[in-house]
């Protein structure tokens, strides 16, 4: 090598080192690894949603930051990441049973249960959210449910510190009630007992409240009064906030192309029902985009549809809720990794197995709208969902939560009942140890969630309303999809 070329080779090298050191210096580290992890896990799981519908995603994160329980509801991706790396011992169990994967609801928590009206008009407590339902390890569901009940205790009696303290003090008993209820019901099912359909509140004042209110509002068709107006002989859906006290929840006009697509979507939906009413039942009368409902599903398309019902009379009009659904994000444990043919099929299969009877909600079906997989169900005030905000006074006591916890634990066992024998082989070895272990993990992890809630809020403060992800102009959806997604009222 001659001198010139040697010199020529060294000069770029020296420059390269300087560039490298400056470049690597751009790497940043955060003070809180957990804060960074929560932000990264959530944004990675929801990147497409954040990029395509930033205002809606920001609304979801703002909602998650508003309360501990809402954070829990919206942070299933964090739960999954924690399970995958056994954070706080979330995955480890002496009673692990990785096969068979059970048909589970994936995100069982207090507010994902409610009263449903079956085809014979009887009421029963059932799971009412299948966004994450899939085949999964049984203790995923069990621990998620127990964690949610502990967090519900922490969220109870918000204006009454003494009452809240009293309920929180019983968090271990509440978690034990969930797991104990699960174990007892599983034992009974494994012994050949029949699946219980929860048609009465029993000793649960929380269920008593839900059943009573459901019965009253079912008879009154309360939803028609709250969500529609009668114009002459015809009914139409309200526009704007149905409840002025909650302005972020509002109904808005739909674009014409969406309205035009709805009849075909309803026909596809009708075909998924167990006993479909005549096509005329679903004659489209009106439809409106709904903003501001749900937590995890906050950014998803949600439409209220007013249909004809059994007759042309306005008092038997029916309101349906059509809501976009996505992947469960919980599948892929072992081959084949995908356990359903489509999102709609996953919804139908998991819900009808999870319920005490397949017609527990006869108008619960699936469809697609402009390419988006969607769930359709009856929007009825006669189907009350359990709500943490009602856990005050008599409904927010430790005894009330313990009684409900046992019922929900038993109900979760029923949801897993197709594999009751296999599960009981593990659980039945040491039921008391089983209860000790799972309840201890639930209490420990729930404490972690409370810390995570603070970390999430700090991450939101530090990184901005989209947790640091900055959509670019090219991320915007095409105009027709943008019109369907709409703009939430708070962004106007």
């Amino acid at each position, binding site marked *: 090598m001659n001198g010139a070329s040697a010199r020529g080779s060294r000069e*770029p090298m020296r420059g390269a080192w300087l560039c490298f050191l400056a470049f690597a210096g751009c790497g940043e*580290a955060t003070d809180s690894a957990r804060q960074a*992890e929560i932000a*990264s896990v959530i944004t990675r799981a929801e990147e497409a949603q954040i990029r395509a519908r930033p205002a809606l995603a920001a609304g979801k994160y703002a909602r998650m930051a508003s309360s501990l329980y809402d954070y829990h509801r919206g942070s299933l991706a964090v739960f999954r*990441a924690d399970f995958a*790396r056994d954070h706080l011992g979330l995955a480890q169990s002496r009673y692990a049973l990785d096969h068979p994967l059970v048909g589970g609801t994936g995100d069982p928590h207090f507010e994902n249960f409610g009263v449903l009206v079956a085809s014979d008009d009887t009421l029963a407590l059932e799971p009412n959210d299948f966004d994450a339902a899939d085949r999964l390890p049984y203790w995923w569901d069990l621990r998620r449910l127990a964690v949610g009940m502990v967090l519900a205790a922490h969220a109870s009696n918000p204006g009454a510190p003494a009452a809240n303290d009293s309920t929180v003090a019983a968090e271990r008993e509440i978690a034990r009630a969930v797991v104990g209820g699960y174990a007892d019901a599983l034992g009974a099912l494994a012994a050949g007992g029949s699946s219980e359909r929860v048609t009465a509140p029993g000793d649960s004042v929380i269920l008593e409240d839900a059943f009573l209110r459901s019965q009253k509002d079912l008879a009154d068709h309360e939803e028609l009064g709250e969500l529609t107006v009668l114009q002459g002989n015809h009914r139409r859906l309200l526009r704007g906030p149905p409840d002025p006290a909650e302005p972020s929840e509002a109904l808005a006009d739909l674009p014409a192309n969406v309205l035009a697509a709805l009849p075909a979507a309803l026909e596809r939906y009708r075909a998924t029902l167990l006993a479909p009413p005549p096509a005329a039942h679903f004659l489209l009368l009106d439809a409106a985009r709904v903003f501001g409902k749900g937590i995890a599903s906050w950014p998803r398309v949600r439409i209220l549809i007013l249909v004809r019902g059994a007759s042309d009379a306005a008092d038997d009009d029916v309101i349906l809720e059509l809501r976009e659904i996505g992947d469960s994000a919980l599948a*892929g444990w072992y081959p084949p990794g995908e356990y359903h043919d489509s999102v709609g099929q996953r919804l139908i299969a998991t819900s009808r197995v999870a319920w005490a009877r397949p017609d527990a909600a006869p108008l619960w079906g699936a469809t697609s709208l402009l390419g988006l997989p969607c769930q359709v169900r009856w929007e009825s005030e006669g189907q009350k969902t359990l709500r943490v905000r009602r856990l005050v006074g008599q409904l927010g006591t430790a005894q009330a939560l313990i009684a409900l916890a046992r019922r929900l634990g038993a109900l979760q066992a029923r949801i897993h009942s197709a594999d009751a024998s296999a599960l009981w082989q593990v659980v039945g070895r040491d039921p008391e140890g089983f209860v000790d272990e799972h309840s201890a993990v639930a209490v420990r992890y729930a404490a972690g969630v409370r810390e995570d809630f603070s970390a999430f809020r700090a*991450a939101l403060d530090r990184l901005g309303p989209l947790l640091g992800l900055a959509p670019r102009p090219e991320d915007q959806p095409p105009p027709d999809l943008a019109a369907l997604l709409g703009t939430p009222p708070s962004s106007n």
Partner: protein
Amino acid sequence: MPRYAWVLIVAAWPAAAFAADDAENRAAPPTAAGTTSLAVDVRPGLEVFSQYAYRRTEHVSDGQSWHHELDVPRIHAALDASADSVRGRLVIEGVRSASEGALIGVAGNSMVLRAREAFAAYTLSIVEGSAGIVPKLTLPEIDGTWMLRAVAIAPEEAHGFHSPADVGATLRATLPQGYGFVALGGYNGEGYQHRELNRGKNGEVAASIHPVPRGALAPLAVFASYELGSTGTGLARADRATGALLWQGKLLRAGVAVTHAWGLADDGSRRALLLDAFIRAEPVSDLLLGARGAHFVRDARTSGDALTTVDLAVGYRLARPLEVFVAGTRSQPSSRAEDSVPGSRYWEARLVSRVVF
């Protein structure tokens, strides 16, 4: 002018008219690829793996389950071009459009094409600079020593320690007389599959030194790399230190590598360790033997959270571009790891073919 002459002129016109390096008095073509006079120096290539895999998964308390599947784990098409000191390379790979367990993909879950490498490189003396979607420095060196990607994916990639490529730039100085190379890289840090999610950029430095570049020990290489990085919108720490002893012979190739991670899978506080050992031999012409073992300590802060995998393979080169293998894998998790990743205790047998041009 005879009529056929007009036909020839019209037929030849597009090629002449759209020569990007001859755009005087007219607009250059809207897309210039393939229109320059250097386009004749472009070399196409392809690599395809196809396999039949049978997996028997062992379960903690309830026997076994099995699954078998025909698959095409690698589809690569490449265009490579060079002129003087400039080089360009494009690699397109086929992947499933939805991730594992997802039902929503493109047209079901079709195979779609994405860019795996797309870069321009310029060589000045012993230094080559590359920019674009570039191969990173660590994984290609280990995988390039193994040379049996069809049989087993590198554990450094499988467990999320390293990505084979990323959007960024590298500078590589090839040491004279076969002493190896030293290199620097700067990347977005999310791997070539993802868009950038933060302001932090990753820096990587690597060196592969052949201490005795002549004689019987010429294949021996000592490799070391360090990557300073962050990942995700939360800027979770993602630093990697890798050290390896490699043997890069023609008939015998082997390596022992250790990688330590500060931060893994968006958890910046996690510490993980990966031990990787492999050997590839061609004891007689066209007979290929491979073995690889890896021990992955998923979280070094706790005890008993580990996953061990062993791959064995026998292959035969039927013709120069075509190799076939019989391969087997054993994945053995610790109890704790198995609880976190149900289904990770399994045996797998595969029949694999690899064609490369």
